[in-house]
């Protein structure tokens, strides 16, 4: 059942062309809304005995609208493990242990997700325990302060990586008003101030940990009816909230921006060139066109990659990326340069490449190859229940339903070289651009 369409015999590279009408998300699933606004998506797969649950809350660093509160959605992800009266942290952990569960959580711009993979016989208990913490979380001021130490520890473990700093400065430079100005981790000064924000943490929970913000994705060796009954029982009494954040709209950028970072220890120079792009869309072509452009112009088989990485060997990493976000976010190209003296040359090469895509039409077969890669790449990752639930969770944060996946791939299949050129002309303009560079003390080389 699951692999039905996939067993069609196709020749390499012809996937998209032959299958434009075939669903990109091959699983049959059930999507249901409880009266309180909670959404349940159940996806039976053929993973014997295993079940994976992703609980997706549509709040992330995007929702951190007050000044001084950057990083709060992420801190709150941590607080969710601080227990309830019925399940204090110790008991919560013991139950997960008895279930042999792999469990964790993560936060991004647009979502906070809590996931657990375990044997199916523990489904009822784990669903009930999760329902309890989403509804009756309770922690003391002391616990709160202790957990802020763990969050600072997380900042610290990331802080030896210059890529994290580059990302932080890029967003801070490119955005003025929208909350994408700060990273999910938040500014260091805000992280250091977290111990003083206990009251705000309670407010944050009250606002966002509500059924209308939440979708439960259950994938694996499950029966949809049974899952629904369990969810009704433990999540049905959860009260709907009424908070709607006022996320600031980013005004159009009026002139190019630049920033430089002096990195304290030896590293290779980094350059990132970014442009304000569109929000994720499964109806409009712009987002998909820029996503394809990032690969066409800067991906592993692009002409520029061949020139800079393979032939001239001046760069050891070149990547393009269109952020997949609820609100308009950045289209960015990042290069790691082997020698400091080549940074301005690389910058020129990237900008010239953008100009070329604005002036010329990309070869149709190159676009076909990208479409094929996207489809195969997406399909091949769905090989176990945790990956299926994880893939769906990412889209649930954007549109609250797996059906956006098929809509997106349908848009993708319709992209033409003209669409790519039009998107490059519309978004990748000088006034819309931010460039950030990073270099170590010796300027580069790293010795």
């Amino acid at each position, binding site marked *: 059942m699951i692999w039905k369409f996939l067993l069609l015999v196709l020749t390499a590279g012809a996937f998209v062309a032959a299958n434009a009408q075939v669903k990109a998300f091959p699983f049959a699933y059930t999507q249901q809304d409880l009266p309180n606004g909670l959404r349940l998506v159940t996806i039976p797969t053929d993973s014997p005995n295993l079940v994976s649950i992703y609980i997706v809350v549509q709040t992330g660093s995007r929702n951190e609208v007050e000044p001084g509160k950057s990083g709060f959605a992420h801190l709150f992800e941590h607080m969710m493990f601080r227990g309830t009266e019925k399940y204090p*942290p110790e008991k919560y952990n013991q139950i997960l242990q008895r279930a*042999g569960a792999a469990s964790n959580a993560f936060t991004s711009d647009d979502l906070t997700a809590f996931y657990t993979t375990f044997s199916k016989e523990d489904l009822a208990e784990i669903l009930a325990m999760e329902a309890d913490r989403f509804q009756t979380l309770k922690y003391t001021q002391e616990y709160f302060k202790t957990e802020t130490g*763990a969050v600072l*520890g997380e900042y610290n*473990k990331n802080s030896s990586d210059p890529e994290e700093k580059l990302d932080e400065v890029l967003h801070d430079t490119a955005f003025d008003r929208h909350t994408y100005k700060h990273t999910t981790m938040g500014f260091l000064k805000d992280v250091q101030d977290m111990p003083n924000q206990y009251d705000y943490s309670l407010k944050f929970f009250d606002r966002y940990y509500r059924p209308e913000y939440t979708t439960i994705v259950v994938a694996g060796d499950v029966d949809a009816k049974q899952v629904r009954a369990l969810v009704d029982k433990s999540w049905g009494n959860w009260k709907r909230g009424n908070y709607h954040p006022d996320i600031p709209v980013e005004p159009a950028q009026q002139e190019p921006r630049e920033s430089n970072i002096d990195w304290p220890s030896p590293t290779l120079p980094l350059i990132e060139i970014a442009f304000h792009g569109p929000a994720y869309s499964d109806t409009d072509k712009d987002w998909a066109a820029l996503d394809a452009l990032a690969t066409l112009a800067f991906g592993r088989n692009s002409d520029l990659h061949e020139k800079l990485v393979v032939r001239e*060997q001046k760069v050891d990493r070149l990547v393009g990326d269109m952020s997949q976000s609820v609100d308009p976010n950045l289209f960015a190209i990042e290069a790691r340069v082997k020698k400091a003296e080549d940074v301005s040359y690389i910058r020129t090469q990237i900008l010239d490449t953008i100009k070329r895509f604005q002036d010329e039409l990309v070869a149709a077969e190159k676009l076909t190859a990208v479409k094929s890669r996207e489809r195969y790449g997406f399909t091949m990752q769905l090989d176990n229940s945790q990956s299926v639930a994880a893939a769906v969770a990412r889209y649930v944060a954007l549109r609250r339903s797996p059906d956006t996946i098929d809509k997106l791939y349908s848009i993708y299949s319709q992209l033409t070289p003209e669409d790519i050129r039009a998107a490059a002309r519309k978004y990748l303009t000088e006034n819309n651009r931010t460039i950030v560079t990073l270099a170590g003390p010796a300027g580069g080389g790293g010795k």
Partner: protein
Amino acid sequence: MNFSAACVMGVLLAANGLAQMRTVTLPSKSPVVNVRIVFTAGAVVDPADKPGLAHLTAAMLAGGGTKDLTYKQVVDLMFPMAAALGSQTDQEMTVFSGTTHLDNLAAYYKLVRSMLLDPGWREDDFKRIKDDAINSLRVGLRGNNDEELGKEVLYSALYRGTPYGHYSVGTISAIEKMTLDDLKQFYKQHYTQSNLILGLAGGYSTEFLAQMKKDFAALPAKDETPASAMKPETIDRTRALIVEKNTRSVAYSLGFPIDVKRGDPDYPALLLMQSYLGPHRMSGGRLFQRIREIRGINYGDYAYIEYFPRGMNLMEPSPNLARRSQIFQIWIRPVEPPAAAFTLRLAFFELNNLIKNGIPAEDFNRTKEFLTKYVNVLTKTKNAELGYAIDSLYYGIPGYNSYIKNGIATLTVEQVNVAIRKHLRADRIQIVAVSANAEQLKQQLVGSGPTPIEYNSAKPAEILAEDKLVEKLDLGLRPMDVQIVPVASVFE
């Protein structure tokens, strides 16, 4: 075919006296095919003056062109399939792995076959691959990843003077001197049928497997390299190595070799101990609870009995890192400098307690239940299942899941605690710290002068009382046992 540990460790001989390749297959109806091609030739067979040669050879095969195709052509052909060939080299094994859709299996395999059996050995590819290896040491490890750096320095320090004495990627100066001829020589000598394990999972046909075996039979039959003897450890007292660099916080790894690996009688007991003390990236472990949850000192704290690189990016270990010798290790994630000395003492305190008191009976039962089920999670993907099956062949054990489930089913808490006392210790430990202000840290670690911790919130009396014991715990370090090295000299 029935494999024993002995036949895997040495050269497997068929009845006619010729070495032969081994295969591990997991056929299914899945349209996704996983390929894992393992050569039991890793850093341990690097020539003494060429540390990193096994790694560079594998990187060249997976990241270079073939006799007929340039690297760019290979990339272009794999691109629409969303496929690639990756390589991983450890001490004993080199694995080439990739995943493809059944639609593309024939085209993908054609490329893989050429890459591994008819490599291009081009100078321009070699230059790029060499740069990548050097930068992975200089920038990726030394520059940007204090935690991985600490772990690898720990291994190098513990295995100094043994066959595992160098990091698999090698040293910068050795890589700079390597030539294409060195790689070709390594390939000729070690990429043999006797070292080969072909792994396949998914909906491939029997004809496909037969063709693959036929193709790889073109490799030389035998590797004539004599097996190296694994020397016993050399550490005679607790010592510390502080890698000094300009960094915000202090990252620790510490441990000692253990005489237990998969297949040995005490492996299930020690795996259970690991699951109690510090299961990777899980909040239920004792170290995580005492250091992070109760005290809020850092992001996490874990324990290991097998090599587990890239732990900061992975939730489960990568397969095909099988080794003849393993270490017990504690990983303490970065700590703010004022709490650094206290945190190390706290880890020692917990280790002491574990050895002295053992695992409490109630925790034992829960951990046992955890492990029985968690093995299913470890092998939740076909790719992981295939990798584990290859490792089981190497270690001469049955399928990993049944091996663990059966191994722990009859274990008693007494047996586990006996194994803990037998294999763990709180002295003769190698400590590695990556830190700024190394001299200051050294002064705090030697002797038993108190190194108290300050909290940002009230803590229970029981914890404060414990802290009083911890803060003056003697690590057994004299000034002469602490060595400070500048980061630029590490793996140079």
